[in-house]
Structures are given as structure tokens and as C-alpha cells.
């Protein structure tokens, strides 16, 4: 099982074992990572599942779609070059050890 590391705004860190095929958003919301709101349930419509992907990992993710890029303009916290929507990141065995930082707000 790949492990995903969530770094919270207060610097607490959470290591969660994730199932391959789930999204990073699903892993977060089913394990009490409340910083991920995911109002649209992963349908790429709400931009409330924003994460900052660790610099070392960003290039290893599948590239984002045009829709995701568009939605990221509307995130509540600052958009950075490493911003992604966690519902659009599918867990693969290669993502074992993925580190994401959580923004302080989603709305």
C-alpha cells in the first residue's frame, strides 16, 4: 500500500496508507484529514480539495487537465506553481511516499 504524507498548516504531519486507484482526496476525506473539504465529491467542480504537492514530487504526477488548471484559478488559498486538486491525483504504486502540504483554507 503506498503511503501518502499530509503536512497540515499547523505543521502536524499525517502518514496514511492509501489504496491504489483511489484519489488523494478520497484518502484524505476517509481518514479525517479535515483540511480537504471536497464539496463536489471529486467531480472536478468545486476547487475545495486544493493541495500543494512537494517540489520533489510535482514532476512525477500525471499532468493536469485544462479544467483543473481553470479551477485552480478559483482556489481560496494562494495558488502556487505546485498547486493541484487532490481529487485529480490518482494513487499509483509509484506514488508511495508522496508528500502534500494542506492550505489553511478551501473556501
Amino acid at each position: 500500500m503506498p503511503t501518502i504524507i499530509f503536512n497540515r498548516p499547523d505543521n502536524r504531519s499525517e502518514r496514511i496508507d492509501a489504496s491504489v486507484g483511489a484519489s488523494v482526496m478520497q484518502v484524505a476525506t476517509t481518514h479525517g484529514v479535515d483540511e480537504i473539504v471536497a464539496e463536489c465529491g471529486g467531480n472536478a467542480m468545486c476547487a475545495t480539495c486544493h493541495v500543494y504537492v512537494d517540489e520533489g514530487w510535482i514532476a512525477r504526477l500525471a499532468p493536469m487537465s485544462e479544467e483543473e488548471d481553470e479551477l485552480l484559478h478559483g482556489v481560496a488559498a494562494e495558488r502556487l506553481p505546485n498547486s493541484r486538486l487532490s481529487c485529480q491525483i490518482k494513487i499509483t504504486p509509484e506514488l508511495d511516499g508522496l508528500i502534500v502540504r494542506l492550505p489553511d483554507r478551501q473556501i
Partner: protein
Amino acid sequence: MSTSGFTPSAGVPHMDIDPFSIEFFEDPHPAHEVLREAGPVVWFDKWNVYGVARHAEVHAVLNDPLTFCSSRGVGLSDFAKEKAWRPQSIILEADPPEHARTRAVLSRVLSPTVMKQLRGSFVAAAESRVEALLAKGSFDAIADLAEAYPLSVFPDALGLKPEGRENLLPYASLVFNSFGPPNKLRQDAIERSAPHQAYVADQCQRENLAPGGFGACIHARADAGDITAAEAPLLVRSLLSAGLDTTVNGIGAAVYCLARFPDQWARLRSDPTLARNAFEEAVRFESPVQTFFRTTTRDVEISGSRIGEGEKILMFLAAANRDPRRWDRPDEYDVTRKTSGHVGYGSGIHMCVGQLVARLEGEAVLSALAKRVSAIEITGPATRRFNNTLRGLESLPVSIKAA
């Protein structure tokens, strides 16, 4: 329309419930439970259609649009067999791949970025509405709040002219009644529809939409080549159909919940940042949009039940939203619940494209109430408004006190 004489495949339980009757609408929850517990798929003898009422099956049908299509209508009427009562919607009643193109236009017009720009004016309008209601003391929470607030922000955001807005709610009620079977609600609505249809057709034209509004932005996408000039008015029509009565019933549901459940009201008052979730939970709990249909494009099996091609399936969003297989304490309204995954806005490619507008309106109203009002008391009988698709109240007399 369904052809009588159809029978379901073996093993699918027959239901003699009419899910479009007034008795059903008066109290749908016990019937929803019967439907959920009868099996993963049921059959309605009255209308010769299949139904799904559990969360897993509703979610699965919503997320397989190639098998369960929308282009044959999302009401009971099958457009392959019967002419639609109005020109078909090019988003709601469209399938992939065509759907993606029109959907992209509305997603952009109603995006999170656009919501950021609208937030200030939507919040200010909610605050002044609540101030005015505090001055009144006693009022009808439906007419004076659930209807008055969306009417004060949404038509302007769309860019509608001031004249004729009284047609908006009757038109929407017509659209949502039309998804039902040919019962009295549908027949009466269509019979009285001519003036409302004329207003809407006129109001969708470019010259009648103020610059900067959602309507003008849709027409601008035609200039950009994303849609044709003939498609733009039809997409404006989608917002006129789906953008107002839905939030009226959503806000009505939320106020009704908070007035009925004082502990939840106290919770919200102690932390007004729960306003957005309190609205979302009301959408789960009451499901302002109760049902939609799909039509099968091939023989398919759902949870062991075989369904032939060309069959209508009624999805009970409201029943899925209270399925104990998916939710803890499903019949409790809980403003702190994790609501992600409810199907009150649908799911998959057709999931409500206006959900951000709905949440913005709901949050603005509940947050203004939580900050300025100490108590909401129901002072008279809550009466129901009946519609084949929408669930909500006709009237909710209340009185409120300033905090």
C-alpha cells in the same frame, strides 16, 4: 411515455407505490425506506419503470452516462418515442461527447473564480434581507426569505431585465413538473405554460441580457466559437430553468431545518463558519431535487438485476441521501456532518453546474441569520408545495428575534 404491458425482468420486486402522487409527496421518507429495503432495483407497476433508491446504485447509474443516457430525457417521457414538450436541453438532456462542449461553457461561466467576484454582493444582499426581516419580526420564511433572497440576487447576476421576472418561478415549476408522468401536476403546468415560455424565449436573446451577467458571458462564448449563436440562448434557458427554484427550495429547506432543530441552530450560532456546511446538510437531508430519470442504451445488469435496452430508470436522490448503508444517523440533520458524497446535486458529468452559486446563496443567508438572529420560532402551520421533482414548502410562518 411508458407502454403498458411491459414487465420487469424476473426477481425485480414490484412496487404498487406511485412516487408522483400527492400522498407520496406529503411524506416520502417511509416510502423511500420501503423502496430501499425492497431491493437494489425495483419496478413501478403504475408507470412501468425501474427505480433505484440506494446510494450505491444511484451513484453507479449517475456515473455511467453511456449506459444510462440523458438524451432520451431525464423525465419519464422517452424522447425516442415521444416529442419533447420544449426543444431539448443541450446540456441536461445531452450525452457524451456532445455534452462536454456545452458543459465546459457553463462551468466557466459559473466557476470558482466568478464566485469570488460575486461573493461580496451576495453576502451584502443577504445581510440587508435579514435586517429587514428583523424589523418585521414575523414573516413567511418561504415568500419573504427563501424566494425573496434568490430573486434579489440571481436574476441580476444573470443580467435579466426587470420586466417579466414574475414568470421565473412559474416557468421553473413547469420545467420540474414536466419531468414527472402525465399526472395532473404535469398536465396543469403545461396547459398554463404559454406566457412563461414566451417570456423565457425572449429573455434568452442576447439583446435582452445585461453586459457582464452570466447570460452575456454565455453569448460571448459563441463569439469565441465554443458554441454556435443558436446554442447560446438554449444555455441561458438552462440557467433560467434550473437556477432559481432549486435554491429557493434549498434555502427553504435549510431554514425549516434550523427552525425545527434548535440544538443545530445553537451549534450554528456558536460557530457561524458552519453556515456553508449547514446549507449543504440541508440539501442532503431534504433533497430539494428529489428524482431524475435515465434511459438504458443497452442491456445491462445492476446489482444482479438484468435490465433491457430502452428502459427508463428513476433515481431517488433523496432516498440515496438517507441510505443507512452510506450514512450514519441518516434521518438526523447535523450541521457538522461530513456531507461530501451526497447526491443532492447529482454526481458525475451532469452533477449540478450551478452548485457553487447555490452554496454561495445558502451560505450567505445562513451566515447572516447566525450572526444577527438569536431565535427562530415556527408560528403557524408549514404547508407543502407539490411538484413532480422539487420538494419544498408553500409557506412557513416564523418569527425571529435579534441577537
